[in-house]
């Protein structure tokens, strides 16, 4: 129990916070503060998103007509390669963990920082160097035309900037490992007093599962890319069939990382959605332990299914059969999550603000992305659909419909916490609607094209597909507009938005016990350990117009808590 002035100090608008405690570019460039590093990451991945997004719009514009002369075949190949490489390595993989996770994770644990702040900063600089190397492929004038997968032997034969790009991806891999390693240690050793594993928010569980993949899978990509560089420069004969090497081995190595990498992209998104659904329904998340363990199950199973990218590559029948079977098992934990989110909505108190709209679009889009995975997991249909537009649509539904949507939802959710300012909710929802509808318009027609046999990575195509490509192109611009609008809404809010309180959404996880924006040390007072999904722990404080933990509230003005139903 504390008096009003202490409440004001702890939960009111702070005079000094992590944004203004030190000034000057050096205070950002050399900061060890996880929140500042997270913000720099957020800016970085946004730039990568816009860059790769522009590549995508150029691609889509080119494909507007079947015999388009807008780009040459070579330019087209370079465009889709760079779109893929920048999106995957520079944007999606670091997006939620390194940007949002960095800001939120230590606060969710009530910690002052991640375990290794210097490593955290190093991770960001490696990200810059790695992205720079990727882009050096363009700046060197050579470009890159291998597809983001760098399949041998084409990547050995082509004289575009494969070495720049693979080196960039190698560096980005280390950036990712540093983040993952940091998170694993932080969650293990820096939890608040008495904060057991089952008192962690599900976002922390999902980041933990993600970090396991980052630490275990990324080194394999590292060595693969090094071998590719050695193959290209010295012709060591491991991947190059001209020298007795095996190009399919490269595919195995590559997908041993890149399939788990898909879960690096989607697991944190699922974690964000678990938070949003629960907070904006004001209801304890349904089936906490099932969601938590399904994250870990997905992370582990994710290591055993890489071969489903290679059903047509000539791997042996038995191996293919096994990979198909294991692939189906991954569907179960994913489905379990969706069902649990639905059950959380049931009898909730649902607020349809911007983050929740993104969360609901996530369920819709990820639903399609996940279900179309069944077509690709089944052997006979995969043979037909492999490397067609069906696959393109499927993974965009998962990665854009899933990860990007969750990222936007998460950013809108934590934005007031980061900046202490509120966004325009109406425009935010308009942005969400544009993203949702534009996205569906872009990628749904691609399922039809794929089923009808339109191969991916084609610079020109057969006229019968033109109408679908045109729908897709229009959709891409709507999607771009939606993202741009969201961006404007967010930036305006950070600069000019109305001040907001420490916990406007009545969330119960620890990060909301800090002021908005948080103090440099995150918390002025050691936070009270609360159950992240027991919203009755948070009570309304009229003076501050915010929700604060019951322990800090004025006991005279607090309504008695509603007891949760136990089984």
């Amino acid at each position: 129990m504390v008096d009003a002035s202490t409440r004001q100090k702890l939960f009111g608008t702070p005079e000094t916070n992590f944004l203004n405690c030190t000034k000057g570019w050096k205070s950002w460039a050399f900061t060890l503060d996880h929140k500042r590093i997270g913000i720099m990451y957020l800016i970085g991945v946004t730039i990568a998103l816009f860059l790769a997004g522009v590549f995508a719009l150029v691609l889509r514009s080119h494909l507007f007509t079947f015999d388009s002369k807008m780009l040459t075949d070579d330019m087209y190949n370079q465009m889709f390669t760079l779109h893929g490489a920048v999106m995957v390595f520079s944007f999606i993989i670091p997006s939620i963990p390194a940007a949002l996770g960095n800001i939120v994770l230590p606060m969710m644990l009530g910690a002052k920082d991640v375990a290794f702040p210097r490593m955290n900063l190093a991770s960001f600089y490696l990200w810059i160097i790695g992205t720079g190397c990727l882009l050096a492929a363009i700046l060197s004038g050579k470009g890159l035309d291998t597809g983001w997968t760098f399949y041998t032997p084409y990547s050995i034969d082509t004289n575009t900037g494969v070495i720049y790009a693979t080196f960039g991806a190698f560096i980005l891999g280390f950036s990712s490992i540093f983040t993952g390693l940091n998170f694993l240690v932080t969650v293990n050793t820096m939890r608040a007093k008495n904060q057991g594993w089952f008192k962690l928010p599900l976002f922390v569980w999902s980041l933990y599962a993600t970090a396991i993949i980052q630490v275990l899978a990324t080194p394999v990509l590292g060595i693969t890319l090094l071998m590719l560089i050695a193959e290209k420069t010295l012709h060591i004969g491991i991947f190059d069939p001209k020298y007795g090497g095996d190009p399919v081995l490269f595919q195995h190595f590559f997908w041993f990382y890149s399939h788990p990498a898909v879960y690096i992209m989607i697991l944190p998104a699922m974690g964000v959605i678990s938070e949003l659904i629960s907070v904006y329904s004001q209801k304890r998340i349904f089936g906490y332990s099932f969601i938590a363990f399904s994250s870990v199950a997905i992370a582990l199973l994710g290591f055993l299914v890489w071969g489903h990218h290679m059903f047509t590559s000539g791997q042996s029948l038995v191996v293919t059969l096994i990979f198909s079977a294991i692939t189906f098992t991954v569907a179960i934990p994913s489905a379990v999550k969706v069902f649990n989110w639905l059950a959380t909505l049931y009898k909730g108190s649902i607020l349809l603000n911007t983050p929740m709209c993104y969360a609901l679009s996530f369920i819709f889009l990820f639903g399609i992305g996940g279900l179309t995975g069944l077509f690709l997991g089944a052997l006979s249909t995969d043979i037909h659909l492999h490397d067609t537009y069906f696959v393109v649509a499927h993974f965009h539904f998962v990665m854009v419909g899933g990860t990007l949507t969750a990222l936007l939802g998460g950013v809108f959710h934590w934005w007031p916490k980061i900046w202490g300012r509120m966004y325009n909710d109406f425009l935010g929802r308009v942005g969400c609607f544009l993203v949702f509808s534009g996205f569906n318009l872009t990628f749904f027609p691609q399922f039809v094209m794929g089923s009808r046999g339109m191969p991916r990575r084609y610079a020109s195509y057969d006229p019968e597909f033109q109408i679908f490509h045109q729908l897709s192109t229009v959709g891409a611009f709507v999607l771009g507009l939606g993202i741009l609008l969201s961006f404007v809404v967010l930036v305006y809010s950070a600069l000019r938005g109305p001040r907001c309180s420490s916990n406007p959404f009545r969330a119960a996880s620890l990060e909301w016990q800090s002021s908005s924006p948080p103090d440099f040390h995150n918390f002025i007072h050691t936070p009270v350990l609360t159950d992240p999904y027991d919203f009755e722990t948070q009570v309304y404080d009229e003076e501050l117009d915010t929700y604060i933990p019951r322990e800090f509230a004025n006991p005279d003005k607090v309504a008695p808590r509603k007891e949760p139903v136990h089984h």
Partner: protein
Amino acid sequence: MNWQLPLMLAQTDSSRLEELRERTEAISMQGTTVPDSSLVREGTSNPFATEYWFPTQASSFAGEVDFLYMAVFWISLIFFVAIVGAMVYFCVKYRRKDGVIAPEPSSSHNTAIEILWSVLPSIILVWIFYVGAETWFEMRIPKENAEEIQVTAKQFGWLFTYEDGDQTNELHLVRDKPVRLIMQSEDVLHSFFVAAFRQKMDIVPGRYTYAYFEPIKDGVYRLSCNEYCGTGHSKMKTACIVHVSEEDRKNNTKWIEAEKTPFENGQRIYQIHCSGCHKVNGEAATGPALNLIWGENEKMIDGTTELVDEDYVLSSIWYPEKHIVEGYGPVSKMNSFKGILDQKDVDYVIAYLKELKNTSGDAK
């Protein structure tokens, strides 16, 4: 070898194809005309019909592939409608009322229901896996008496070599005649894909890959490269023409006639490179006799058995130390012919071995 980019019908000026062309929608594309009779579909505006999603079913297993696709389509649709329906319903029904933030307490855990919605989908998944695998075996295991056609893929064109050594730049098949494609690449990865057949297989440099199917419907279908292979990837298309009969194919195809049959080429290679150590009259010499080995299981010095197929012959010629036949050990006395005989030459040797096996078999 004729490596011009395939200009489809330019080479196949037959009345039969004229007929097909009339039946199909002829499409002009950057100087290349690829009519695709699989595009003639009915009821294409109904997205719940198989015809909406797929081209014509032109191979024996296409129907089964489409069946599974549509089955998964309906299963997904039911699940999707249920999930999104429930989501929308909850969002409307339990929408936050003004001033009331906290919902009525309700359950947050129910083990029974968790197990139910884990197990129920699992059963459906097992079924999908089973049906998918069943059809897939049919797609991957060769049929008896299949016609064998050598496929050579190269940036950015196709060459098909038939059993008599004649070649074409389009694939000419005969209706109801199973076919086994033996595929090789001269440079990078390619992939054989004919949507109408629902068949696809990567073509990997340095080894053989195979594709099997039985065309069941005559027409002209699009054959495309499905694995990114460089600048002209999207132009690496040709036609696959299914003729009504052998006769029809023979007369209405513009063949690139071979000077020598593959057998003759193989025989010549044998005489130059192999005859010193390998006999073809059944007698063992420095190396084993070659006349009866094709398609047999040979015993190796390490006790294993190896089937003598394309890959075995390729590896025995390029890496003689890898498989040593029982009685010829302990180390191989043969030199590697890698760099001397390329994969095309090995094709000829294989043709020679096959013919030897056939004729020797007859003699018996």
